[in-house]
């Protein structure tokens, strides 16, 4: 038995060493070969989850690049933002989607649930700070360990291909169909329920902490930032926590510039479902945002929080 245990021990140590060295080399290779470059003409970017991914058609907004991606928590946005900013010196304005479901505690799953680890974590893991990794390890150690092979494979693939991550993952997505079509669908069919965040009243401190980190980072880099809420249809169930949302906004982000497009005048033909715009809606909103970006005085104004109506009255878009 002793010989067996000794041999197993040596084999496992060798294996651990091999995996550690392989991971380390792969990580270094990823850091050297993988990039976060965006179009050189882009000076502003949008980051967020599927709401902003489907709302802002960057082909219609000069100088803006949409880097949003479905299911992204601020935890991953933070790492992505740091890398994008350090690789693209001409970025001087950052929009961050800030909407109802992003403050709900249930969205914490987007940070450490297996499904998200195998995608978002796998993409950015080589760039995530070890202190941030501890957060995942603490909350889902089983998922973290079980996903290591997936993460390793993803890193290896990125390294071998020398991927430029913003051009491979995320970006504007044009959705087809409208809310009329959506309402006709059998709710049991088609949509993956897991993809929708069930809003609860509890606040996700993790999300808000990472949003704070994003804000601090941009302040430190002297880059303008603006929180933005993409248009939502009145039937969107996420509006259930609107009071909590407004509390968070006024108490924690009072000094941060915020553009609220929730009440952007759009109809059922402009939405694919209650929380995502279709391409027709996205084009209207993108043209409007493009005009706003031309208004320099907006970004210099003392007033920080703006509703769509106030912007219309003041800047006559």
């Amino acid at each position, binding site marked *: *038995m002793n*010989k*067996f245990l000794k*041999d*197993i021990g040596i*084999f496992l140590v*060798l*294996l651990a060493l*091999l*995996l550690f060295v*392989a991971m380390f080399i792969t990580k270094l290779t990823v850091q050297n070969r993988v990039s976060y470059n965006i179009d050189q003409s882009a000076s502003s970017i949008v980051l967020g989850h599927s709401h902003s991914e489907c709302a802002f058609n960057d082909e219609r907004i000069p100088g803006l690049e949409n880097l949003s991606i479905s299911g992204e928590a601020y935890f991953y946005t933070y790492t992505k933002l740091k890398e994008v900013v350090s690789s693209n010196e001409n970025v001087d304005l950052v929009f961050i989607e800030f909407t109802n479901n992003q403050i709900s505690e249930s969205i914490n799953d987007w940070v450490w649930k297996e499904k998200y680890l195998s995608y978002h974590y796998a993409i950015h893991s080589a760039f995530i700070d070890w202190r941030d990794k501890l957060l995942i390890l603490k909350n889902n150690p*089983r998922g973290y*360990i*079980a996903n290591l*092979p997936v993460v*390793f*494979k993803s890193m*290896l693939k990125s390294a071998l291909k020398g991927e430029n991550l913003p051009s491979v993952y995320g970006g504007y997505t044009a959705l087809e169909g409208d809310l009329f079509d959506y309402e006709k669908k059998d709710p049991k069919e088609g949509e993956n329920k897991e993809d929708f965040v069930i809003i609860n009243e509890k606040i996700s401190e993790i999300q808000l902490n990472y949003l704070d980190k994003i804000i601090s980072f941009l302040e430190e880099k002297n880059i303008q930032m603006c929180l933005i809420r993409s248009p939502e249809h009145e039937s969107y169930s996420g509006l259930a926590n609107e009071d909590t949302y407004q509390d968070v906004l006024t108490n924690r982000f009072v000094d941060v510039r915020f553009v609220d497009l929730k009440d952007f005048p759009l109809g059922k033909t402009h939405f694919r479902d209650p929380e995502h715009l279709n391409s027709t809606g996205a084009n209207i909103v993108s043209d409007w945002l493009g005009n706003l970006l031309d208004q320099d005085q907006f970004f210099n104004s003392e007033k920080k929080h703006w509703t769509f109506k106030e912007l219309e009255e003041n800047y006559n878009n």
Partner: protein
Amino acid sequence: MLFNSLDFAIFLPIVFALYWLLDRFNVRYQNVLIVAASYFFYGWWDWRFLSLILFSTIVDYTVGNGLKNTEDNLKRKMLLWTSIVVNLGFLGFFKYYNFFLDNFIEAFSFFGGEFSSQSLKIILPVGISFYTFQTLSYTIDVYKKNLEPTKDFISFSAFVSFFPQLVAGPIERATNLLPQFYDKRKFDYSKAVDGLRQILWGLFKKVVIADNCAEYANMIFNNSAEHSGSTLVLGAVFFTFQIYGDFSGYSDIAIGVSRLFGFDLMKNFAFPYFSRDIAEFWRRWHISLSTWFRDYLYIPLGGSRGGKWMQVRNTFAIFIVSGFWHGANWTFIVWGALNAIYFLPLLLLNKNRSNLDIAGKGGLFPKAREVFEMMGTFGLTVIAWIFFRADSLGHAFSYIQGIFTESLFRMPTILPKLVLALLAFFLVIEWVGREGEFALNQLLLKWNRMIRWSFYLIIVAMIVLFSGKQQEFIYFQF
């Protein structure tokens, strides 16, 4: 609990350590631990069905002892039938109730009758087909006086629920496994190391071969109408390797884990895709089930006695029942019948026992004739697997029809080079190691440890790097 899960990676070392710590005490303590660990292992999936295993254990233990206490033929027969009715009753209810009900209603309405009844939402308890057959083998062997019934309830419980082979076999015979629980197990270094090698190869088969092939087999089978003939062939080949990697991988892990605990389970697969005819294939595929049917169905039906007609009838009977054992669907029955048809010419020409050794025995390469025979046999099994994998008979026939079109000669639209390269690597290792109990059994044993361990590390690295999307073991559903 899946063998290829983190849960099992934690469970196994803990049970292993406790088991060998109990080595200094009476063997009974180790057996109690095995029962507890096995119930925990099974309950991890669904604890409610533990009662079925316990009930089955109590019934067969009682029947076994009842058989010992009486020589009255009628009483003995009644005891035997009690065990058969209870075990097959569970199996019939959980696995076949809806199938019989649906077919009964269909047949009734075909003749103009009206019958309304609702199918039940029945969850199939994992492994029920395996452990019911295992306990049945005990009762039948005791009834036939091939085995002394046990007085040791703990050993018997451990035999019924032994976790490595509880949910997907090998279906052990009481004559082989039960006596191993009576004697004190001694830790055997070479047996344990060999067990680890078999676990490693089983994991490779499951995680690298089966799971990768599954992705493409599912992709092609689920949209078969949209694919070219050549792609459909590739889909069927992927499924052929998926089911082999999946099931024989599970058996390898089960046998390997058992060896860590000092047990020897029967061999379940012996390189079936290197068979030169269908009879050889069936001597090499799911051996524990084939021999079960041979001993408890084919021979009681008369076996090869009573002339050719009886032989043909009995052969069809065991193949069809074997198909039906896999699941309550006509596709499995046709799969069984098709294999019986393949078998028929060999039986009629008395050639069903002509290839008893492994192909190319003693050499590195097979003879040209053997290559053609292996390819022919492989082709036949690929066609049969289409029925096994298809959702319905209609799907299977349209799949085969789709193959035999002019698009058969075009390049497949799905051609995953990495998976094909992995399959090539797998086949080379299996071929080189085909004379051992499993591919890595004898491979590189004569080489020094550094080379051997480097090879094992490469296999581990491949498991990490090339693992497919995790799929449940196919045979769990049977």
